[in-house]
């Protein structure tokens, strides 16, 4: 069962409180239910024709005010102490910038590496500085019992330390538009050596956790053309389709070589989409916006090699 998987320290902390409250709740619910059924049967009209006219009992009122109060306060205290731990990242934690946008996640490491999947070493504290580029989103890893909202113009911080290697779901938990339920990713936990090999390995280092992720049903980024992998990783596909479907931005299908009307500083021009236009649209998206589309595309940092791959890939879409 995937959902009882405790894959991080935070999961252990959260579950400990959960089982405490769950135990208390079951006891309380059984007590109340059994008592209700017993009274209904024992004091039915047949068995007990005349009711006793009892108005109340002060001692009992005090008892069932104080006992629940004490128990509820213990739940509060336990819940608070085990949560406070999740708020304060250790100083030696590696800080990762998490950016949420409609409808993708991206992760940036201290050395500048950017990924679409979150890679993290086993047993090391990882700090997440969560931000949003547009709406409110929610960063949620069920196997870590970890959740923090991504709020625009604000950086929310949380952290985790994984206790089990594996690949775990990341889901968005705040309604953010039509593809809210597709705003998914993975956090991949690998042994520290494997993580380091990738992290310090330069641009072409193979992504860690390949074997882990190959087993999954989700489409593997590695089998895609390099250009498509970049488009996916940078979140471009949230607004641009590659199959002709209209989205927020124009589709990339058969865009190369087409004539398009673009707005240049408010004036309408007709241009032909060529190599240079594609590159400029990525590096300076606001310069020549296709007529009828909002000037909403953010500037996206691509390496020269990534840019080449993307343009090469777009040319193949016809």
């Amino acid at each position, binding site marked *: 069962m*995937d*959902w009882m998987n405790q894959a991080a320290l935070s999961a252990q902390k*959260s579950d400990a*409180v*959960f089982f405490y*409250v769950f135990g208390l*709740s079951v006891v*309380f*619910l059984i007590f*109340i*239910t059994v*008592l*209700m059924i017993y*009274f*209904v049967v024992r*004091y*039915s009209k047949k068995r*007990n*024709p005349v*009711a*006793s*006219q009892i108005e*109340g*009992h002060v001692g*009992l*009122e005090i008892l069932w*005010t104080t006992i629940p*109060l004490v128990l*509820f306060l213990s739940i*509060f205290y*336990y*819940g*608070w102490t*085990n*949560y406070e731990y*999740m708020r304060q990242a250790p100083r030696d934690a590696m800080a990762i910038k998490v950016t949420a946008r409609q409808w993708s996640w991206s992760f940036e490491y201290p050395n500048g590496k950017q990924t679409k999947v979150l890679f993290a070493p086993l047993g090391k504290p990882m700090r997440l500085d969560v931000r949003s580029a547009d*709406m*409110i989103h*929610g960063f*949620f890893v*069920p*196997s870590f019992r*970890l*959740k*923090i*909202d991504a*709020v*625009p113009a604000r950086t*929310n911080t949380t952290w985790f330390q994984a206790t089990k290697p594996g690949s775990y779901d990341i*889901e968005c*938990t*705040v*309604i*953010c*538009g*039509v*593809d*809210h*339920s597709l705003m998914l990713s993975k956090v991949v936990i690998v042994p520290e050596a494997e993580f380091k090999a990738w992290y310090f390995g330069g641009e072409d280092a193979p992504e860690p956790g390949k074997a882990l992720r190959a087993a999954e*049903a989700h489409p593997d980024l590695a089998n895609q053309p390099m250009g498509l992998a970049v488009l996916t990783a940078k979140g471009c596909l949230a607004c641009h389709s590659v199959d002709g479907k209209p989205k927020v931005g124009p589709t990339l299908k058969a865009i190369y070589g087409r004539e398009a009307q673009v707005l240049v500083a408010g004036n309408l021009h007709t241009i032909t989409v060529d190599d240079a236009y594609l590159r400029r649209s990525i590096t300076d998206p606001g310069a020549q916006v296709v007529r009828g589309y909002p000037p909403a595309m953010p500037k996206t940092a691509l390496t020269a090699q990534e840019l080449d791959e993307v343009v090469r890939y777009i040319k193949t879409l016809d």
Partner: protein
Amino acid sequence: MSGTHATTPEPSYLVDTGTRTGVLAWLTTTDHKRIGLLYLYSMMTFFFVGVGIGLVMRLVQLTTFQKLITAQTYNALFTVHGVIMIFLFVVPGLPAIFGNFFLPILIGAKDVSFPRLNLASWYFFIAGAILAVLSLFTGGGAPDTGWTFYAPFSLKTGTNVSLAVFAAFVLGFSSMLTGINFITTIHRMRAPGMHWFRMPLMCWALYSTAWIQLLATPIVAITLLLVILERFFGIGIFDPAKGGDPLLYQHLFWIYSHPAVYIMILPAMGAISEILPTFAKRPIFGYKAIAFSSMSIAGVGSLVWAHHMFTSGMSGMALMIFSLLTMVVAVPSAIKVFNWVSTLYKGSIDFQPPLLFALTFIFLFCIGGLTGVMQGALAINVHIHDTYFIVGHFHYVMFGGTGMALFAALLYWFPKMFGKMYSKKAIYASWFPMFIGFNMLYFGMMILGMMGMPRRYYVHLPQFHTMHVIATVGSWLLVLGLVIFFATLVYATFKGGKAEANPWGGVTLEWTIPSPPPLENFDVIPTITRGPYHFEQEEHR
């Protein structure tokens, strides 16, 4: 209770006596009982629309309907389901229907303080409802933000959020005016001798509810107005791109919307406090404890709103305080449960359909309350926040709690309201599919939430599918039960046998007048000499 029986039978409120007749007489009535029924009919219509939408949403999760329903439509469905159920059914439900009908009778009055204002409240309600329906088909289409309208999404989406929140704004007036009316009625219209602690507990519940309606509703009204201004003029209160703060929206929204949860549940608790003594044939256990717990729920309940925002990035101090207060507000609810169960002790229990639904309320409300406590604990909240767990939880509270209590109240007061009796067997028959289906659906949802299924998802990951199937089958059973239940009652209004004035052996004032009640309730305003649940003399009469 001498002097309250009519010597010459006066026509019932259902008979037109004024200059107008038929539909017009109903639409211009200022009689609190007729207004109660106007609310009943309109709300039941909305309820079934909401149920229908819920059913379709479950079918989408089976993936059977995904060809018909797009992601955008699905987002609109859960928004509209929420808006209808919250603003048009659960929040106004019990106070507007049973508060209007029974509050004046329970305190020995002929009507509420402001009968015309009362009718105006209904028109505000209907106007709000019409605007809400219009918002689905005009502008950019049905809103897709969820019923919470969180900024900045609600500011940016192209759908018709402006009209939808304006509808909620208009509905707020209905709520506030009803609140003012009830507070004044309770203060000014009690029969001679009916001092505060001789009022039936339903009145206490309605009184605390009315205060929340009056004090909290203006906050959401102004918040929603700000959303509209921001959408049209970009004033930048909530949009971070213009220097606004999206968390400010959440604070303002929940300052109303959390107390609104208590607007929903307090009258439900009041109804349960009426039903239990009648069928146990003994006074309610701990009258004052229940009355004070209603007031303290209204008070402390106004201070816990930010527990809806535990993952939003609030300060640690705010998290701690709101978690603590959330635990404190659970105490008065627990007190009520203990007192209700103790009311059965050494009673002489006459098991009837209203009691079955009242006990079902207690059971389901306990699950709803306990799962609420889980969410109040920060370390658990961080996992289950914004998942199906919260969806399951609030359906336990709102449907298992308020909904079941509304059904219990309907069964309890139906013979009084319509002068007809329903088939008890058919009601028992409706209970089984309703109860089993309810728990399959909403307990299933809570398990899904623990597994990590986020709310408001059009498609779900494969590991969640089995539980989704179970929940969907549960939804069919639940609807089957609802259909039997309401078919039985509708049938009874036409063909049911005549009900006695006091079919359950109750001792509160509504049972001293004929069924259905005469136009002005009482020939002579009764003089009250004792507490509301005094059975002893009935035995020796």
